[in-house]
């Protein structure tokens, strides 16, 4: 097994990776920017190294500095977490070229899947359905021509994108023309690539994703699905598994489709295939593959009993996985606690004056903060993930209410109040909601 891992991330996900390292007796090395010197992930790692100024571009995105520090610390492997450099093929290559193991798929898989037009082609060739879509569109005129041929409404997406940035729905030529200009500037700025594509917008759909593992022997296994339909700004707020109301036959088709996409690129490690699913027509469409650990991976761990980070490390080391014979099963839900006001979801940086987490049976908290910590405007607003596990959806929902009531954060606004409101929403409680749910509540 790997004896040491540098964790190229911060906050809750860095702590999450360090926790598994500690359990397995692996030496962990944290990195931190000047803003994070006192952070929990730094305190909990066996060692830590400073990598630069608070702005991510000067620290957590400095692949060259991170590789240099990993070598200096004698790290055997680099785990990227999610976000930052996790889907950067050049960084993965640099880690491998320096003689360390990269905890993730090969750099070429990252590049192949990182480009959405390309990923759609891979899925199509693997016999997996995709929505009608365009190739690359560079101008509003080309976009309008493409949209007229595939039919409105369309979804505009950055080809190299992620995290919902630059995505927009357009219902006609005028909306599309405006959306293209905005999306191009956002994509260029966020991803260094202004390429866009269009896809048919599927109304009334659910967002369902499948967790896959590409094992060291080349085989692919899937570990169930996660429903991520509760979204604001095309970004997830709540995820659950299993997906409520998803027929078993359709679930089986989704898992097979994800395995096929992963097999088509010889996938290695943990990855997630995202789909749009229409429960009305019982049809589904491949959206994209995320070539890293997903934010919402804990709910899969709760119902499968698998430590996904452990499997990532084992696969990187060329070892067979340790998958349990019996799964705990049941139902798990994750609530993302963001430093945002719960009404309009505007960012709320500041100093946390109170931080009381709930605890108890069936409750798991992955957090990156504690009282007196500063939440700066430099990074993503995710403070913590509250995950609840119950025998079925109803008991998980009941446990959610208690846990959310007991989660006390002061000093910054958080999405806890939104989650409490969600637990009063009839469509959500009945499991009949779609990706439009949050918009319908505001």
């Amino acid at each position, binding site marked *: 097994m790997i004896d040491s891992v540098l964790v190229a991330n911060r906050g809750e996900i860095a702590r999450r990776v360090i926790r598994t390292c500690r359990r397995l007796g692996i030496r962990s090395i944290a990195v931190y920017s000047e803003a994070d010197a006192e952070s929990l992930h730094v305190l909990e790692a066996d060692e830590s190294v400073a990598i630069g100024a608070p702005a991510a571009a000067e620290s957590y995105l400095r692949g060259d500095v991170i590789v240099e520090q990993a070598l200096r610390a004698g790290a055997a492997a680099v785990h990227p977490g999610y976000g930052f450099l996790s889907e950067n093929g050049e960084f993965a290559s640099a880690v491998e070229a320096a003689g360390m193991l990269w905890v993730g798929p090969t750099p070429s898989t990252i590049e192949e899947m990182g480009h959405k037009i390309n990923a759609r082609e891979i899925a199509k060739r693997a016999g997996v359905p995709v929505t009608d879509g365009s190739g690359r569109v560079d101008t509003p005129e080309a976009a309008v021509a493409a949209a007229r041929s595939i039919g409105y409404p369309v979804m505009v997406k950055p080809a190299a994108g992620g*995290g919902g940035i630059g995505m927009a729905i357009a219902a006609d030529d005028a909306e599309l023309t405006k959306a293209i200009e905005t999306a191009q500037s*956002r994509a260029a700025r966020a991803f260094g690539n202004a390429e866009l594509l269009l896809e048919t917008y599927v109304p009334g759909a659910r967002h369902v994703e499948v967790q896959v593992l590409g094992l060291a022997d080349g085989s692919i296994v899937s570990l169930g699905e996660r429903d991520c339909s509760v979204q604001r*700004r095309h970004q997830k707020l709540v995820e659950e598994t299993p997906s409520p109301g998803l027929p078993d036959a359709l679930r089986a088709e989704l898992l097979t489709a994800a395995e096929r996409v992963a097999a088509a690129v010889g996938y290695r490690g943990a990855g997630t295939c995202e789909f749009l699913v229409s429960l009305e027509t019982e049809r589904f469409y491949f959206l994209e593959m995320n070539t890293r650990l997903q934010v919402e991976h804990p709910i899969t761990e709760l119902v499968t009993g698998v430590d996904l980070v452990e499997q990532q490390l084992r696969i990187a080391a060329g070892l067979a996985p340790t998958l349990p014979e019996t799964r705990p099963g049941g139902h798990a839900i994750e609530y993302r606690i963001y*430093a945002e006001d719960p009404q309009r979801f*505007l*960012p*709320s*940086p*500041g100093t946390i004056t109170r931080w009381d987490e709930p605890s108890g049976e069936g409750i798991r908290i992955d957090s990156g903060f504690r009282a007196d910590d500063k939440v700066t*405007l*430099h*990074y*993503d*607003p995710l403070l913590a993930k509250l995950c609840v596990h119950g025998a079925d959806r109803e008991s998980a929902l009941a446990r959610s209410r208690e846990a959310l009531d007991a989660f006390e954060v002061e000093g910054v606004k958080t999405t806890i109040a939104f989650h409490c409101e969600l637990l009063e929403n009839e469509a959500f409680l009945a499991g009949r909601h779609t990706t439009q749910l949050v918009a319908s509540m505001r």
Partner: protein
Amino acid sequence: LAADVRSEVPGSVWKIVVDDGATVAEGDEIVILESMKMEIPVIAPAGGTVRLKVEVDAVVDEGDLIAVIE
């Protein structure tokens, strides 16, 4: 009659959309702020002439003056 345009969030000024002295209509974007990886547009609450009070990269707090519309 002048209307103050204030920031709703702590953040930094990413982009100035209209020139100082430009004429805007109600609902036009004046400035785009950035905070926690999000873009937050600052919208003209009324039509008129814009007097900008911030520059690109300036750090603003909640309630800080961004512009005045005359």
